[in-house]
């Protein structure tokens, strides 16, 4: 090791890391021959980059702070428990129990996931393990396009096509969880399929080769080897799809029927947290408005929790 010169006592983050780390025979000191001005410039840039990266953190903190703070007066007024565990929603009577909407959101999300996730995972398996280059060249872009269609268009489709069909088959007006399941499951398929496919693609070819060499059929390979290996990634994908479903707003508003009642049947209208916020925002004031912000804060916490679960899962996966 050459003795360190003052000029070379630099911040580690500014050196050329790859070369120095991967090829130890080069001495660190010899690589850094830059002027003071350049040093300052590099440091300033580093600071700028760091500030940009912090914007994301700032954004999340601000979002939660501003949404939650707006909800605080409500908790003082009616009590947090009456909000989160209350089953009665009536603006006129200032009853803001959100349980019916939480139940609505859960029913809609779980159903959409139960239909959409298997479809998406099977599609991903098809793309990754079965499809030839030609089939993949058609289906992959199709799935990506499906992800790009705006949610209003899905809602529009639900209102003008799916709801009338449901109405004809099951009676009623055609609005409710069943309609929402059908539309939402189509919406979340691309999210889950694309992320699952990424997970499947990251499985090394070697273990598939090994499986085939043992005489396994393609399905046995998929079922016994590939799927278990990609399990965590696929669960991640499903959770993110779930986040998409629970946060979906405009499409859901157009098809669930928006009745502020407890889940009463698959073709009976219900409300979700998101649809109720949009319906209420137009005319809300006072305690009602704070209740809507409280619901938004709740949604925010739910989505954060889902992200946290994904991160924890991925983490245990890496350690395992």
């Amino acid at each position, binding site marked *: 090791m050459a003795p360190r010169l003052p000029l070379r006592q630099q911040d580690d983050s500014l050196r050329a890391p790859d070369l120095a780390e991967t090829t130890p025979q080069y001495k660190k000191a010899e690589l850094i021959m830059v002027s003071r001005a350049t040093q300052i410039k590099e440091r300033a840039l580093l600071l700028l980059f760091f500030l940009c990266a912090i914007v994301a953190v700032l954004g999340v903190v601000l979002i939660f702070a501003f949404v939650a703070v707006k909800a605080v007066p409500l908790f003082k007024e009616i009590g947090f428990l009456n909000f989160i565990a209350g089953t009665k929603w009536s603006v006129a009577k200032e009853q803001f129990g959100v349980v019916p909407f939480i139940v609505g959101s859960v029913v809609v999300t779980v159903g959409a996931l139960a239909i959409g996730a298997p479809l998406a995972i099977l599609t991903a398996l098809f793309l990754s393990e079965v499809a030839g280059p030609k089939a993949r060249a058609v289906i992959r872009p199709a799935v990506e396009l499906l992800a790009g269609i705006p949610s209003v268009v899905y809602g529009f489709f639900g209102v003008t096509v799916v709801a009338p069909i449901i109405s004809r088959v099951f009676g009623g007006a055609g609005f409710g969880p069943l309609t929402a399941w059908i539309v939402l499951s189509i919406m979340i398929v691309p999210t889950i399929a694309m992320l699952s496919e990424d997970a499947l693609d990251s499985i090394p070819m070697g273990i598939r080769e090994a499986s085939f060499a043992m005489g396994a059929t393609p399905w046995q390979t998929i079922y016994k080897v590939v799927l278990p290996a990609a399990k965590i990634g696929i669960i991640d994908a499903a959770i993110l799809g779930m986040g998409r479903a629970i946060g979906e707003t405009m499409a859901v508003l157009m098809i669930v029927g928006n009745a502020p009642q407890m889940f009463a049947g698959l073709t009976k209208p219900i409300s979700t947290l998101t649809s109720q916020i949009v319906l209420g925002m*137009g005319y809300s004031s006072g305690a009602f408005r704070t209740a809507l912000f409280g619901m938004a804060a709740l949604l925010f916490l739910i989505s954060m929790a889902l992200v946290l679960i994904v991160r924890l899962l991925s983490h245990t996966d890496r350690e395992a």
Partner: protein
Amino acid sequence: MVKMKGSILALLLVLALSLSGCTRGSTGIVVSGSTTVEPIAEVAGEDYHKAHPEVSVLVSGLGSSAGIEAVGITKTADIGTSSRSLKDEEKKLGLTVIPIAHDGIAVVVNPANTVTNLQLNDLRDIYAGKITNWNEVGGPDEPIVLVNRDESSGTRDAFTSFVMGDTPFSLDAVVLPGTGQVREVISRTKGAIGYISEGFVNKQVRALNINGIPPSPANIASNKYPLSRSLYFLARADISPEAQGYIDYVLSDAIQQGPVRDAGYLPVTGGER
């Protein structure tokens, strides 16, 4: 990277331009409130802007309460619009109330439905969920499918005050956020009942008589039809001359006999100002 610097510069430039741009340009009148009034106010605004290019009218529909708040409390609007009369606490704001059109709320059913008349209290019981089958009001044996509007709707507000009073709505009703949707759903659902502005009744649905009175223009204008209301503009005492000019224009024949009628409302006759 050069491009990136360029884009930052461009952003700053846009911001600078925008700030300088605020001081000049045309006078803007902000009109916000009732979604029922919105279309009329909007068309009137466009036409007024054509005649007076120095004035531009921005119309948004947020619901009557929001409109009253916007003109009376936050003062973010020059003119508020409402499809209901002021509540007591809102009367304290000292706003001038200007009726601009009459509207009747038609109770509509599927054309295949044989019921032609409902008493007001039967209608209330239907929407309260006490009457659940059409055969209870002299119709076919068909479950009633309730279609309601969202709570921000002025039409629902009016329906509530005309029909429901303090009786709560049945929670089982489908809540739809738009008039056209209500009409669409009723036209394809045999047992459905809903309510829309009389102006939007078309061949897809059939309007019922209430207490034996059909929702005819004459009956609405004379308030004989039980579900009649007026649409209002609301202004503060310190209203600008531009905004006053716009209000006068809305009350002129050009709007009253044009867009107001097009929207299916009735013009205000006589000087109720």
